[in-house]
């Protein structure tokens, strides 16, 4: 068998649905840092071919024993409200996304990140790094134990505060499905003035970033629970056929 793909007629897997309307624009004046960090030329349409419908398969080797429990990564327990954050990763056709890497990072209970350039006057917690990772199971489900993060001030506008949030990074199963986002908590009073929140054009899409308080999965005398499902792009229904062309 030839290893020269030019000699093969290669059927390409279906591409992924485009979902631009869901995402914030790259140019959003309310978030000042976008000003010099968005392309001004129109984006070029990239058809989804092999490089785009494949992606890294990252497995157990990347996950340590306490990576999904941010309250057990140090000698003692961190300060703050212990919470369980769990949910399912699906695509927009409702199919679970199994065995995919999820990475999270967050501020501590007082709203401070363990990062060199975060120096607002709220103390670091020696027992909290604020970094976790896990793989979804066969049903696309994930679960973290962590501390409810605090809100924190920033310099975007007068008296600006970020609503409490946890950063989530997901790979899905294809380069095209890659997503980095933030999970918020229900009823946060800071949404109205937050440009990250307001940058999402559709109110219903914003609400999809808010976890649901999940009393049923609360661990009695231990931890509150929040449920947050994440939906990645589903597949197009059309399969393109690359034709044999050996000249």
């Amino acid at each position: 068998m030839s290893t020269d793909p030019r000699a093969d007629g290669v059927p390409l897997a279906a591409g992924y649905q485009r979902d631009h309307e869901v995402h914030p624009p790259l140019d959003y004046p309310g978030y000042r840092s976008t000003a010099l960090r968005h392309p001004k030329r129109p984006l070029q349409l990239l058809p989804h071919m092999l490089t785009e419908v494949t992606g890294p398969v990252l497995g157990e080797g990347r996950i340590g024993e306490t990576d999904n429990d941010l309250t057990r990564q140090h000698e003692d327990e961190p300060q703050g409200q212990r919470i369980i954050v769990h949910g399912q990763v699906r695509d927009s056709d409702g199919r679970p996304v199994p065995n995919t890497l999820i990475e999270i990072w967050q501020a501590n209970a007082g709203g401070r990140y363990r990062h060199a350039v975060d120096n607002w006057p709220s103390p670091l917690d020696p027992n909290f790094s604020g970094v976790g990772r896990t793989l979804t199971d066969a049903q696309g489900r994930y679960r973290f134990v962590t501390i409810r993060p605090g809100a924190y001030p920033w310099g975007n506008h007068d008296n600006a505060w970020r609503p409490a949030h946890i950063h989530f990074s997901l790979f899905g199963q294809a380069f095209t499905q890659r997503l980095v986002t933030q999970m918020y908590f229900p009823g946060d009073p800071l949404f109205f003035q937050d440009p990250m929140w307001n940058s999402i054009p559709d109110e219903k899409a914003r609400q999809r970033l808010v976890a649901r308080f999940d009393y049923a999965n609360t661990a009695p005398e231990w931890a509150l629970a929040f449920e947050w499902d994440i939906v990645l792009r589903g597949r197009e229904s059309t399969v393109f056929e690359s034709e044999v062309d050996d000249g």
Partner: protein
Amino acid sequence: MSKGETTPSQTVGPYLHIGLPWPDGPYALAEEAEGGFWIRGTLYDGAGAPIPDGLIETWQADPEGRFDHPDDPRGAQAWPGFRGFGRCETDAEGRFGIRTLKPGPVPGLGGAMQAPHIDVSVFARGMLNRTVTRIYFPEEAEANAADPVLAAVPEPERATLIARPAEDGYVFDIRVQGKDETVFFDI
């Protein structure tokens, strides 16, 4: 659930460096594996200033143009020491580097072959969603001329997608905005 109800993107923010870098991130080809080279570059903003709070990710085929993934219809095939995926945070001067192998040509649509290329995601504070670009290779003039993705890019801008040769591999700078703005793709 109806179609399109996907989860919106949000920025990685200023503190991505606590959550995303991996010690072996830059090694799309394992450190000890032979035959690799570096792709190094600097990420610039619209004022020409380096972006120190950014992250680059790369994804590419192996030297035979194949992917170690179930959706490669020719069958997933692993190349020794090769992950195909690289991740590197930018440093204080906006610099990044990925150690990898040169990908082979990759089948495209309608029988057309794509020139060797690497897909790139760019994340940064100030970006509400990732931006996506591609790296092509300077010694592949003929394949680049026939590449359907490059062909769709206006000619004067194509050069922004072609790496430059360097002593230990290639240089690929990324200019998010302004003069010589890199071409970015709607993915």
